[in-house]
């Protein structure tokens, strides 16, 4: 069964039961063993409501559909099965439409032709923006996948460390946190010169994260908090410190994603016409008057 934040109250109850066992073994006149029940039962309360990594899939799937429509060439879909996407045939029609009026005279025709010449670059930039946004959403999913895995591992280790509390044993349980390494591979900034497809290769690691969890980052080093089995007080204090670590790493990851998002938004804002080109002059002519529009000129042939 998949772990979720809704399992945490049960884990807190398990931890309390283990502490009661240790207290019973030891006797009830020691602060190090007699921890208030509320302190243990509420230990995971800060994580009572978390974003579900699965919920990001709807958006990343939608963005993949957008990528299909904006692809001017073949591209990696970033899926773990290694599948690739093909160029959109609809875009080819738009690009070839410019060639159709290449020999026409007149200002409107010339502008339309110039506009279609830049069409591929603009659409490619939109594709790049879509890829970058998808990578950032994947990173978000990875962060929360990591948080849930860490909470699962930590709450499990905490209870077992508490159960190992004995008079002669003071060992530490060591676990590894995942969330700290969740976003090491976020995308670089969007290129704005029509080189979008190269971005897919550069940022490929980030593409595959959403539905597959953390395996992309398995090789990265991970913080390893220790949970003491010296006594219930040491154990609980270590759990609290590890929970603080998870919060800190989550905040750092979120800040990194926000910073990358801002960077990409600034690129788009600073070069808006590269992403959304103004319509050609021909586009402003009312349809019923097009034959009377001098700017269209005439076909010399």
């Amino acid at each position, binding site marked *: 069964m998949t772990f979720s934040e809704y399992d945490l109250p049960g884990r807190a109850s398990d931890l309390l039961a283990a502490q009661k066992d240790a207290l019973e073994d*030891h006797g009830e006149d020691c602060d190090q063993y007699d921890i208030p029940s509320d302190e243990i039962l509420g230990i995971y309360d800060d994580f009572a409501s978390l974003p579900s990594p699965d919920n990001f899939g709807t958006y990343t799937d939608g963005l993949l559909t957008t990528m299909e429509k904006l692809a001017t060439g073949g591209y990696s879909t970033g899926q773990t099965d290694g599948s690739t996407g093909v160029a959109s045939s609809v875009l080819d029609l738009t690009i070839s439409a410019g060639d159709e009026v290449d020999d026409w005279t007149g200002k409107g025709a010339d502008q339309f032709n110039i506009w279609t010449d830049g069409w591929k670059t603009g659409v490619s930039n939109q594709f790049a923006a879509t890829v970058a946004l998808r990578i950032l959403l994947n990173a978000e999913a990875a962060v929360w996948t990591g948080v849930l895995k860490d909470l699962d591992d930590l709450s499990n280790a905490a209870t077992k460390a508490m159960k*190992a509390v004995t008079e002669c044993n003071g*060992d530490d349980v060591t676990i590894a946190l995942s969330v700290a390494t969740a976003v090491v591979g976020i995308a670089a900034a969007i290129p704005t010169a029509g080189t979008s497809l190269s971005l897919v290769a550069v940022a490929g690691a980030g593409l595959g994260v959403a539905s597959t969890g953390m395996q992309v980052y398995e090789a990265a080093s991970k913080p390893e908090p220790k949970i003491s089995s010296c006594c219930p007080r040491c154990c609980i204090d*270590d759990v609290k410190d590890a929970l603080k670590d998870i919060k800190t790493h989550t905040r750092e990851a979120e800040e990194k994603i926000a910073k990358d998002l801002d960077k990409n938004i600034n690129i788009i804002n600073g070069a808006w016409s590269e992403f959304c080109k103004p319509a050609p002059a021909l586009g402003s002519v009312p349809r019923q008057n097009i034959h009377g529009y001098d700017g269209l000129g005439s076909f010399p042939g």
Partner: protein
Amino acid sequence: MSDTNEFRERWEETVVVTESPNGSVFVQNRADQVIEVRIDDGYFNRASLDQLRTQITAALRLAVADRFRAYRSMLRDVSGLSFGQAERGRRPHADEKRRKSEELHIEGSSADGTVTVSAIGLQHITVSIDGGFWDSGDRHTLESNLGVACTSAVQAQFAGMKELTH
């Protein structure tokens, strides 16, 4: 079964056997409840008291190390987690408990008082064997008395550790 009970039951089933450096003295620890000592008959007959005491002491030191190794291994097997020696400097209470445990003096004796085993922090182990009893050449009684003294010392260790945490 809860991990607590499984830890206990698995440990109660655990037998740790250690031999002295020259392979002539054997210590068997059954879950810290019963300690048995066996001495090779040939070595018993040819060794001096000092030589034998040196081997027994060495075997007991190794038995302590083996015991903690086995306990940690049991914790890992049952929990699937990485249990290891506590890192110093993380928790003041754990450090203090460890410091006190390293100074904890314990002693256990045989019922007739001819054999005594004492230790400080389970590190500095001393074995005393009455000279008159040694002269009797009764290996079986010596083994039995060593077992009783060691078991008694281990019980004193647990009691001392419990006191330390209050």
